[in-house]
């Protein structure tokens, strides 16, 4: 009982929870206007696309891959949506067209990484530039607006009677879905197995390449969804849609405790890390901190979380070596 409790204190999710609670309390007390419903709902809506894209990215990092092209996929998918709007298509067709575009982008990444075996970081750095370039080529310099009411409502309206914006609903729903898949299903166990040791996973009969490919496709589709929320927020389709969002997305994933070395990380962590970065951004915003300094802060958090998760791993591993009895330490692994 006591061991279980002690082990809980040692999980990164618990540390995050403490950080989130203290951050929210401190911000409520110290940042004027932080607890205003308007600040809360706009803060959540603005952050929703980044939080959403962090969910599939966490899975990719767990299998030792990464997708830094997510914001460009979001941009390209919204350009596709915009072209469909221009062609006078109904909303369902616009949404489908955007999601299919995201799926294809993800498949391109997946093909090069999972099928051809090229390094994910470099492939998606390439597609980051490629997909963004396509945005400008396809759309030119003139943004498309106005958008159908569906999109503006998705990006800017609250659920009637709540402080919660529609924009965060896809994240909440998908967080539950991703949580169940990752922590309760066979696929989830396979994902951890691949991250833990790809070779072993392959010899145990797991279709490693297929799962990695699918994760890139899922990342593409979810990025498309984020792209549509973002176009709602900005009331237009522009070639620079969602530009630069990958910093927040990647920071959330690593702050969540997902390890660069693979095999480690939980959806709970992603949710908590999202709240933390959201609260940090909103607090800095309300304190009239410049965009440049916000960049420094978020970049700093990214480096710090890499450092802390890495150091704590080394710390725990060295302790394990000193203590031969595995039953004591096995709990927190």
């Amino acid at each position, binding site marked *: 009982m006591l061991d279980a409790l002690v082990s809980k204190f040692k999980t990164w999710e618990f540390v995050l929870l403490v950080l989130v609670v203290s951050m929210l309390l401190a911000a409520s007390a110290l940042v*004027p206007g932080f607890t*205003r419903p308007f600040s*809360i709902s706009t803060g959540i809506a603005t952050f929703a696309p980044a939080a959403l894209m962090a969910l599939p990215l966490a899975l990719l990092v767990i299998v030792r891959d990464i997708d830094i092209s997510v914001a460009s996929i979001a941009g390209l998918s919204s350009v596709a949506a915009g072209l469909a709007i221009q062609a006078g298509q109904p909303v369902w067709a616009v949404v489908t067209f955007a999601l299919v575009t995201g799926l294809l982008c993800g498949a391109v990444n997946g093909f090069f990484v999972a099928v051809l075996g090229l390094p994910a970081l470099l492939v998606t750095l390439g597609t980051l530039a490629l997909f963004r370039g396509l945005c400008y080529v396809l759309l030119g310099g003139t943004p498309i607006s106005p958008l159908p009411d569906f999109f503006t409502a998705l990006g*800017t309206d609250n659920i009637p009677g709540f*402080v919660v914006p529609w924009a965060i609903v896809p994240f909440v729903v998908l967080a539950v879905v991703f949580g169940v898949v990752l922590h309760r299903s066979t696929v989830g166990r396979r994902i951890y197995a691949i991250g833990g040791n790809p070779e072993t996973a392959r010899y145990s009969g797991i279709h490693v390449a297929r799962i990695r490919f699918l994760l890139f496709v899922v990342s593409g589709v979810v990025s498309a969804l984020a792209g549509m929320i973002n176009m709602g927020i900005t009331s237009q389709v*522009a070639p620079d849609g969602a530009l630069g969002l990958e910093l927040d997305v990647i920071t959330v994933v690593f702050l969540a405790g997902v390890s660069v070395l693979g095999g480690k990380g939980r959806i*709970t962590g992603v949710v908590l890390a999202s709240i933390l970065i959201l609260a940090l951004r909103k607090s800095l915003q309300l304190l009239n901190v410049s965009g440049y300094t916000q960049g420094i802060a978020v970049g700093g958090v990214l480096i710090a979380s890499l450092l802390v998760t890495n150091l704590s791993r080394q710390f725990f591993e060295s302790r394990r070596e000193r203590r031969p009895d595995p039953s004591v330490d096995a709990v927190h692994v």
Partner: protein
Amino acid sequence: MKKSVTTVAIGAAALMAFQLSGCASSSDSNSASDSDSGNCVSGPIKIGLIPKLGTDPYMVTVKNAVEAAAAKDGSTVIYTSPSDATGAAQIPFVNQLISQGVNVIAISGSDLNSTSAALAKAKQAGIKVISWDSDVAPESRGFFLNQADTALIGDQMLTSLYNMIGGEGEFAILSSTQTAVNQNAWIASIKDKLAKDPKYAKMKLVTVAYGEEKADVNAQKAQELVQAYPQLKGIIVPAGIGLPAAAEALSQSGDLGRIKLSGLGPVTLVNQYIKTGNVQDVWWNVQNLGTLTFATAQQYAQCKIEPKQGTSYDVDGLGKFTVGENGTVLLGQPTIVTPENEKDFPF
């Protein structure tokens, strides 16, 4: 498994607490926005300034002028600082200013539409919205404070060169890129003037070259023009990067003086050449844009003026302004900067 369920539960509880604390304070924030909405401010105002980029020297010059004007009656200026010149990057700053309960949001739009939903929320909260330097969608704002009428800029550059070369001889244009919208409009109006106005009958445009918005290309093209056209007496360089680059290149080759330059760009970049009398610059007083912005914001917040065509109002030190179409207020005619008035332009 159990561990994760507990953590989720605690996480959810934390979220709820966050929401509850939001609800608890909703009453006071409502009353705050009630007192703002529709009410006219008497006395000092609280104005939020959103530039395209926080560190852009042009924007900072405007900010300083707004702050100087605001200091006179103790008004508050919140200068925000987006780090990307995109409309999307301006949205959190609009939301921030709404939360902070400013009376006026004055924005230089990075694009037309991105901020429109956020600015609509500002309007709902009783905040007056004006744009300066670069417009947002007209339905999102009241006034648009336009620094210069683009049609006049081309005419002024031609007049300036006319004065320097004595009204006759060959000249060239060194533009930015072939697709540059503003530059092409100015070139078209220059060609139009040359064809129709007998005053310019003795001036001949020999060619239009392009400096591609790069200093080295501009320098090279300027020298090529001088060599290709031995009779050349002047070059119009309607681009902020091109004018100083061309002046520098021709000054080094010793051609500046025989060749006169006119163009457009921040005065501080070319004032050393303006002083020689061989270069003139068409520009406007950027500080005045800040002064006009604050005065308009103040009188708008105090309900003294409305963005209706024909409305006129006084601005301390600048005189009388009249609202044109779509709530647009023009800062004035762009000025030809010469050695005599060069000191009046701090930007």
